[in-house]
């Protein structure tokens, strides 16, 4: 027989009780002489308060029985075990739970983040075009349409890719040094990138990079990764999930950027356009980078793309010494492209 206390869950008054084993269950008798039986299956361990163990009943909220932890074997055998972390973890132990959790999570992350790479090519282009148009629209009609500019841009693209005709490449009248590949084969080049460029060959490298993003289905891949898996991880995982998503997504985007650069260099090579010009473009951006410490006009490009220095080297190293390269556009064509946001439409 053990002495303890009881809250019955109906009144706040604490009663002194005695508890004794009775068959497979426990008999609780209060100081008023009333007694009742409790089945061990209904009992849960609530907490330890010093040398008192507190038990509750799963069927009566607020019902609490406090018993000294020195309760004799007979009573103790009918009391439930302590819970620490929550059901399943207590059963297998913390180290095993941690290992199992890490393994399952790693597997989920691996499948979740690598599957978009092979899912992306399965998305038909016309479906992606629809999604792209729904998401992107027409930039509020901010496209630049100066005479001859679009033709020059299309010609440049055609030199870089045999399938350039399927793409929708536009210059947008927004004051940013940037270019972006968007869903549905849409590529936009922002106005200031053209103004900053010193000749068509410098634009060619950047355009080749964005075309590669489209052709390698990086955009589709990124969209699936971000909207599909990343969002789920970030939603369910709270800040932990969001951080994991950020790290992994950044890793994949670095890989994609590098691949796009490599593909751009191949395209330049096929078209016999000098990669040195693109290297020079990055060199100039890199100078801004150093001088302004990443603050200032014209540096948006760096925030969405890798640091200029390493890319400058990549393009520079691709230059074949002594080779005779062709300019990517004629003088007139470049003039038209350069002024696409200023000239009147034809």
């Amino acid at each position, binding site marked *: 027989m053990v002495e303890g206390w009881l809250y019955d*869950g109906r009144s706040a008054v604490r009663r002194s009780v005695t508890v004794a084993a009775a068959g497979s269950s426990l008999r609780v008798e209060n100081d008023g002489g009333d007694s009742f039986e409790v089945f061990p299956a209904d009992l849960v361990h609530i*907490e330890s308060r010093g040398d008192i163990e507190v038990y509750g009943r799963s069927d009566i*909220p607020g019902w609490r029985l406090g018993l000294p932890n020195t309760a004799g074997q007979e009573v103790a055998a009918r009391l439930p075990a302590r819970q620490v972390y929550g059901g399943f973890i207590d059963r297998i132990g913390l180290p095993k739970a941690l290992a199992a959790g890490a393994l399952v999570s790693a597997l989920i992350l691996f499948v979740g983040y690598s599957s978009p790479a092979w899912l992306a090519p399965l998305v038909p282009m016309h479906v992606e075009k629809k999604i792209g148009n729904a998401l992107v629209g027409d930039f509020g009609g901010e496209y630049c349409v100066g005479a001859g500019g679009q033709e020059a841009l299309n010609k440049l693209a055609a030199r870089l890719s045999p399938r350039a005709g399927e793409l929708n490449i536009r210059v947008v009248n927004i004051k940013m040094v940037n270019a972006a590949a968007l869903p549905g084969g849409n590529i936009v080049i922002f106005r200031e990138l053209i103004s900053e460029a010193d000749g068509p060959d410098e634009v060619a490298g950047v355009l080749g990079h964005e075309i590669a993003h489209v052709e390698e289905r990086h955009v589709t891949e990124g969209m699936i990764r971000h909207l599909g898996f990343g969002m789920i991880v970030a939603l369910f995982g709270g800040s932990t999930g969001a951080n994991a998503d950020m790290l992994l997504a950044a890793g994949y985007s670095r890989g994609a950027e590098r691949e796009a650069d490599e593909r751009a260099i191949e395209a330049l090579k096929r078209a016999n356009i000098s990669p040195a010009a693109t290297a020079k473009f990055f060199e100039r951006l890199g100078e801004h980078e150093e001088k302004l410490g990443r603050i200032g006009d014209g540096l948006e490009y760096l925030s969405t793309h890798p640091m200029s220095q390493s890319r400058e080297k990549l393009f520079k190293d691709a230059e074949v010494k002594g080779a005779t390269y062709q300019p990517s556009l004629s003088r007139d064509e470049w003039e038209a492209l350069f002024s696409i946001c200023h000239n009147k439409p034809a």
Partner: protein
Amino acid sequence: MNDMSEISGARDASGSAFTFTGQWREFLPIALTNLALTIVTLGIYRFWAKARERRYLWSRTRFIDDTLEWTGTGKEMFFGFLIVMAVVVPALLVLNFGLEALILRGEFLAAGVIGFALYAGLFYLYHVARFRALRYQLSRTFWHGIRGGSDNPGWAYGLSGVWRFAVGFVTLGLLIPWAMTRLWNERWGSMSFGPHPFHAEASSEGLMGRWLLIYLAPVLGVILMGALGFAGAAAGSVSGSEDGMAMGAVAAIFFGAILFYVLLLILSLSFYALFYRHVVDATSVAGVDLRFTARTKDWLKLILGNIALVVVTLGVGLLFISYRNWSFLVCHMEAAGVVDLDVLTQTTTRAPTDAEGLADAFDFGAI
């Protein structure tokens, strides 16, 4: 008849009816294992982690003769989160992408209208969430085997929050203290513990002085920055060049801006400290009058302590923020009056099942 049926909550030798007996050494293993489990489950364990944390904090919080008990579970918080996500996320996604698409198409008016409706809706939900989080927390807080709660779902409270703050903004913020106190009254006035409703009858009288001080901050800030900029320019001109003057002025204005933010923070904090004392003092339940004693300097110490802890421990201290905040609240909470245990019987309010899903979506803290 039990001779312990009436217990006094008035100050005893230990100083307050509320005491916190937690120890950081006890809390550390809980915090660390919570962190480890949260990481390996990609964050899903955070609901169970929060439940474990609260179970500890509540169990080390003593009111008069017995400790509190937190009975909320990780599972119910996870389901509460799922319920809210299922409703809120699709709506937010559609609105968000719809807005983006409209803006990219130059439909600024339509985008503006939808955007405004979206934010008004979120503001409404924010208040509902705040109400429901409190209701949930009380319904899972037991003392002497009795819990609190409310049968009010909080939908009307959400509307009240929207219109009162709208009035507050329309009057250039002058009526925000009024909105805050009325909402406190409404929120707590809807809650109960056992059979006893909470009474909250705070007025905004006595709060306006400190509130108006906050208005002074920008004025003081501009004067300060002007003076510092001028002084900086003067100091810079010693170098003899215009560049030196400009640099001096910029540096001084930068310094002034930081000072301004610190000033604004302290003034806001001093208002909040007064507000919190004011509203808690006007709150009572079951014949017990509550009191809150933290002054501005106490709040400042808490916040600076939290920042220092996180910085010095390179972020590990983040694990202790909830512990410190809870201990702060309990240590400054006092109660006076007599609790009649015989009439403190179990509540008939429903135990809500949505836990803190909505509040979680707005990322509220424990209190």
